[in-house]
């Protein structure tokens, strides 16, 4: 209440799980779960930070241009107060080199009125961008 963000409930965890599933299935309905004033804190090397759902879509569109089937695979959902921490690995295959990417991430999501209003991404941009320039092994 003090922070202005929602306390994380089982319902919000389920909503987050559904969003990852929708992203995996290229279902743009995931945008409905993003607050219009969303702050998306992506490392600068990956195109961030950006504001609002449409900017998120643009970042994802750029990823699709560079990688085949880019998607985050969540492995752990860790609620803590008004923060939902999601640990997982980001997957994709660089179109330029054929190299596969498997990069660990931590996402920290905060909701307002049941929609994600603050999304922080912690990951190494070199692990994502490096394979765009490397020759595929083998």
């Amino acid at each position, binding site marked *: 209440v003090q922070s202005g963000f929602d306390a994380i409930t089982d319902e919000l965890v389920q909503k987050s799980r559904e969003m990852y599933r929708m992203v995996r299935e290229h279902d743009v309905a995931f945008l409905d779960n993003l607050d219009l004033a969303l702050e998306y804190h992506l490392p600068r090397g990956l195109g961030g930070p950006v504001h609002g759902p449409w900017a998120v879509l643009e970042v994802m569109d750029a990823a699709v241009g560079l990688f085949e089937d880019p998607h985050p695979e969540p492995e752990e959902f*860790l609620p803590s107060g008004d*923060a939902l921490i999601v640990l997982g690995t980001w997957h994709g295959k660089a179109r330029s080199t054929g190299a596969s990417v498997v990069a660990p991430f*931590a996402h920290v999501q905060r909701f307002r009125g049941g929609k994600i209003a603050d999304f922080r991404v912690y990951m190494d*941009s070199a692990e994502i961008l490096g394979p765009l320039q490397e020759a595929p092994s083998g």
Partner: protein
Amino acid sequence: MQGLVYGRIAVESGFDVVTDEVVQRAKDGYAMFQRHDPAFLDGLDPEIEYRVPDTLPGGGHLRGQWEMLAFMDTVAGLWDDPRPEPEEFLPAGDKLIVLGTWRATAKATGVSVEVPFAHVLQHRDGRLASVRVYMDAAKALRSLEATPSR
């Protein structure tokens, strides 16, 4: 109810449930590290697992205090006063997620760098036994090559 669930997870995982005491111990650990107090070593499990981005020199999945200290020594050789400054401590079952900013100044260029981080800490028998570091290591590495701003 959540506590019971977390308790069961902790028993299965072998890690301690995060209590206020564990959070305080973690805060103390960061403070000791920042002032270069070797007493922070007392809070480490001898078999600690320390996972940092592979792209950092000496990084990867490190095991034991020796490998962890060797990595920190490598980092200290590249940057002046490298330090994680914690801002939020988020307990979640048997994990303590710490959000903050890593700060340092590259020795080669004089460029100061700030990189947001998430640390996932796990304790066993009161000692830090597992650390996973999530950060944009590329940003830190760029400071080694950049020209300092005038």
